[in-house]
């Protein structure tokens, strides 16, 4: 099927790709069907394009593409809502905001999107982790990740090799 979008013009989409948010995203309760489009530049950013309204889209990103770790507890009620049975079926995205200065772009870690890959149902959940803010600067998280990775690398380098002669 073809849909008209304000950002990408007319695009051809496959019905099987549609992700259904039965209650919509917070503040957008009337819009239920979305598809995920890759950014054309090969970056980890994606577009969550609404199918019901071609003018509505969000920039999203998988948290682990800029964070060292992102721990989230999916409540029984949230899991039940999208019939999520196995943790490995859960695909997580966070919504990105890009202000005038793009290096200050932020991710909403408190309201992530959980998609059940098994049935393509999604829900915007609210994280109960108090460290998850709604405006977390992405470049800061990348910086933190670089520091952590360096620490790990350094600790491995300082250990003697095992099992090799």
């Amino acid at each position, binding site marked *: 099927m073809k849909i008209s979008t*304000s*950002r990408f013009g007319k695009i051809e989409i496959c019905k099987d790709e549609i992700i259904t948010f039965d*209650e919509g*995203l*917070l*503040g*957008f309760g009337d819009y239920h069907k979305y598809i995920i489009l890759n*950014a054309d*530049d090969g*970056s*980890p*950013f994606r577009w969550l394009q609404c199918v019901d309204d071609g003018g*509505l*889209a*969000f*920039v999203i990103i998988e948290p*682990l*593409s*800029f964070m060292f770790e992102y721990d989230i507890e999916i409540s029984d*009620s949230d899991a*039940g*809502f999208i019939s999520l049975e196995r943790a490995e079926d859960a695909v997580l995205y966070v*919504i*990105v*905001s*890009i202000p005038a200065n*793009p*290096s200050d*772009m932020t991710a*909403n870690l*408190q*309201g992530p999107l959980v998609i059940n890959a098994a049935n393509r149902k999604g829900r*915007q959940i*609210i994280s109960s982790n108090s460290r998850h803010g*709604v*405006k977390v600067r992405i*470049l800061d998280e*990348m910086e933190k990740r*670089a520091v952590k*990775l360096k620490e*790990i*690398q350094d600790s*491995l380098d300082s250990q003697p*090799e095992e099992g090799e002669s």
Partner: protein
Amino acid sequence: MLVLTRKINEKIIIGDDIEIVLVDIGKDQVKIGINAPRSVKVHRWEVYEEIQKENREAAKITSLDPLKSLPDDIMKKFGKKDTKAKKQ
């Protein structure tokens, strides 16, 4: 607005399946227990409002072009999920 007076452990029922119980009363706060079906979302109002606001702001983005002004080395740092420290 309907205003009800309740004592500790007394309940209110909303519709057929939403139950509110007053669990505790402190000096300047009350603890409330809520039993509701899965389809009913229950959140602190402030958090709900903040995420709605953030969603509305994010929906205004029309292009990723502004990211092109970021230094190349920043964009390269993204997405390296497999950048795990390796033993040489």
